[in-house]
């Protein structure tokens, strides 16, 4: 019994254990539900999975199922980010324990009972527990806001290398705080219309109504919600990576005010979508996104400079090649910011390109093609966040030497092959006529399937390794019981 109790304490009582459980949960959902669409459906795997697991799939309910699937995965991601925050930032132990406990119960209930309701018949008790799970996550968010309160002198910076106010308030903590506050408020923009539509069973996917010139306030609220929540997950992971890498110095002092400003303005813009200010809301969103993305760029410049500086410290006058070598020597430290840069080619760059070419693209292409671009780019953005988490998790696992290199570079290269191919797939109408696209589609599908498939294999290997480790009396899990991420921050 003690055996089980110890493992339980590790998995649900330690930061790394909690992150491992959430990654495993996401991995299982992604692996199983990934077989219900795309090439797997074409090959007939979908039908086998449905029969094998006893799923009850009703055609009319597809949109509702997908909404619950997205939320199930997203809540686990939010839980992972929360574990990282509570382990990286100073806060009272009570808050840390309470937040982690509540959000863990919340996302597990959300995932199990949400998916149970959506895919395995409609047990309305399950739906109630799903909503209860979401509510717990919301409550954990409120607690996180309280815990992060940055104007407590206890949390003022002592090292002047970090961005701070005249009185000493930590501006990085303010950025975390602002992101947490706006996340909780933005959750309401989904919760309110969710209740409204859910009550009448009229779920819809935003990408299917994007071209309608007149949308209701509730529809605007849903569209705003899904955009801002993903954006805030991205902002939060950027702040987390910055903390892990110990972002500081002059660029930190420029970046943090920009991040705070960007996050607040971005949110005001998105919230404005549901108000009479809707016509100018998009301009406000652009204004808010710019400083946020610039702050991320400053993190990238700082971290790459640091990697090069540290990697060439032993060389008096390093050549360009030596600098590149130093930059690339640690894929787990280089990878997260590289993925942020790569995101510009697969997500924001595509959005800007499409906006410029509006007359040639979206006003000409059929709506279903626009849908491919829309769903493609936010799937890629979500997956980029996942790869960043996996890179950080590799470091948490203490990977060293060749294992670190293979693990890190595999994640970066395989995901970028897949995401690059998805991006070309979204834009294929620009390169080939519709009737002649099949060979290109086939080639891209091979690249996407290969990249994502191998990524899943790596994730599976990681999880099997951690599972085996749990059976050991003196496994790594013992060491990780009291590991706090704050102690593993770069020097």
């Amino acid at each position, binding site marked *: 019994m003690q055996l089980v109790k110890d493992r339980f304490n590790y998995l649900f009582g330690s930061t790394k254990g909690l992150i491992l459980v959430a990654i495993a949960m996401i991995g299982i959902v992604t692996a199983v539900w990934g077989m219900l*669409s795309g090439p797997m*459906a*074409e090959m007939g795997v979908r039908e086998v999975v449905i029969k094998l697991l006893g799923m009850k799939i009703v*055609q*009319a309910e*597809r*949109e509702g199922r997908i909404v619950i699937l997205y939320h199930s995965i997203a809540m686990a991601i939010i839980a992972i980010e929360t574990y990282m925050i509570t382990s990286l930032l100073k806060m009272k132990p009570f808050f840390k324990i309470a937040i982690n406990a509540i959000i863990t119960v919340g996302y597990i209930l959300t995932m199990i009972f949400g998916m149970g309701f959506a895919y395995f018949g409609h047990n309305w008790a399950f739906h109630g527990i799903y909503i209860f799970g979401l509510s717990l996550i919301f409550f954990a968010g409120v607690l996180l806001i309280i815990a992060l309160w940055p104007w407590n002198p206890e949390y003022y910076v002592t090292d002047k290398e970090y961005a701070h106010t005249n009185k000493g308030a930590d501006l990085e903590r303010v950025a975390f705080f602002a992101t947490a506050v706006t996340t909780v408020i933005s959750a309401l923009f989904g919760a309110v219309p969710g209740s409204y539509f859910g009550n*009448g*069973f*009229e779920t*819809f996917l935003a990408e*299917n109504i994007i*071209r*309608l*010139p*007149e949308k209701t306030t509730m529809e605007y609220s849903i569209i705003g919600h899904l955009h801002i929540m993903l954006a805030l997950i991205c902002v939060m992971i950027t702040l987390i990576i910055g903390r892990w890498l110990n972002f500081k110095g002059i660029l930190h002092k420029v970046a943090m005010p920009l991040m705070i400003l960007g996050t607040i303005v971005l949110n005001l813009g998105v919230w404005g979508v549901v108000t009479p200010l809707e*016509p100018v809301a998009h301009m406000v969103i652009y204004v808010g996104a710019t400083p946020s993305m610039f702050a991320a760029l400053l993190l990238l410049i700082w971290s790459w400079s640091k990697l090069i500086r540290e990697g060439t410290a032993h060389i008096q006058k390093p050549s360009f090649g030596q600098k590149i070598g130093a930059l690339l020597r640690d894929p787990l430290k280089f990878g997260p910011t590289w993925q942020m840069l790569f995101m510009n080619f697969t997500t924001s760059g595509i959005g800007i390109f499409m906006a410029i070419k*509006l007359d040639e693209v979206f*006003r*000409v*292409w*059929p*709506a*279903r093609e626009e849908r491919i671009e829309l769903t493609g780019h936010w799937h890629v953005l979500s997956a980029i966040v996942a790869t960043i988490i996996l890179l950080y998790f590799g470091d948490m696992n203490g990977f060293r030497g060749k294992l670190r290199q293979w693990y890190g570079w595999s994640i970066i290269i395989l995901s970028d092959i897949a995401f690059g191919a998805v991006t070309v797939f979204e834009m294929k109408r620009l390169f080939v*006529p*519709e*009737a*002649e*696209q*099949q*060979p*290109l*589609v*086939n*080639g*891209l599908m*091979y*690249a996407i399937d290969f990249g994502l498939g191998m990524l899943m294999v790596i994730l599976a290997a990681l999880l099997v390794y951690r599972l085996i480790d749990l059976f050991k009396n003196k496994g790594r899990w013992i060491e990780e019981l009291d590991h706090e991420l704050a102690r593993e921050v770069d020097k």
Partner: protein
Amino acid sequence: MKRLFLDFSLLVALLASCAPVDLNAAIPTFETGVDSNAWAQIPAGEFYFGQHEDIETTEAYEIMITDVTAAQYADFLNAALADNYVKTDGGQIVGFYPGDKFHAVKHEEEIKAGDWIYIPLNDSSQKIKFDGTTFTVQKGFKNHPMTMVSWFGAQGYCEYFNSRLPTEMEWEKAGRGTDERPFPWGAEIMRENANFYSSRDPFEDMSTFGSRTSPVGFYNGQKYGDFQTEDSASPYGLYDMAGNVWQWTGDVYEGMHYRFMRGGSKDTYDMDLRLWVRNNATPTYFSPGVGFRCVRDK
């Protein structure tokens, strides 16, 4: 050695992606026995409309049993050219459209009165051929749905024959009947029901040219060679109301120039074949996966 093999495999996959597509590859020919000149009677009354099953009502009308075929469209063009109803304009056939009221809504484009494209002539996907005097159909495609036709070309065809494009409601009622089914034939979809993406019908080859259209009324329960179909008619006896080609509908909505299509196509997954799924495009859009059928008032 392993790395060389991997590199070689990637190179082969890359080169295969750039392979040219033979748009004139031989196509199997089948007679379906379904009369493309037949019309179905749709009674007045209520029906379930849309995914959320709102109860709506239509008047009685008639609708074509099948999509307009390429042969029917070629016959129309020959007659319409002789009547000066259409004319050639560069590499395309154009016809007059009286224009839509413009509301200057964001993203709306003005559709003015004037000549608008019906079909392109020089596009390699076009199955209608024009020798300067007569329109003919590429061999093997006579009983396939007319594709590569703009909304104007579809609307012009129906109008020429004193009919019109169906409204979205009329289209959906004709496909769905009066119950809540998601597909014209019932609750579930199989490969034997319709021509959709990777449905393994005799007309597709996903390794080369991909999906192609099937003859109208193909999914009528007959066996074609080794391929057994299910009778997939709608409750009112319409064929191809799911899959094969998207079908233009006639509604012109205030504040948008886009025209809506229904039914999914050979190029879409089964989820887009659900009867309430909508697609839309600018009215000048044409595609190998878009066709139409007409309705007329009783």
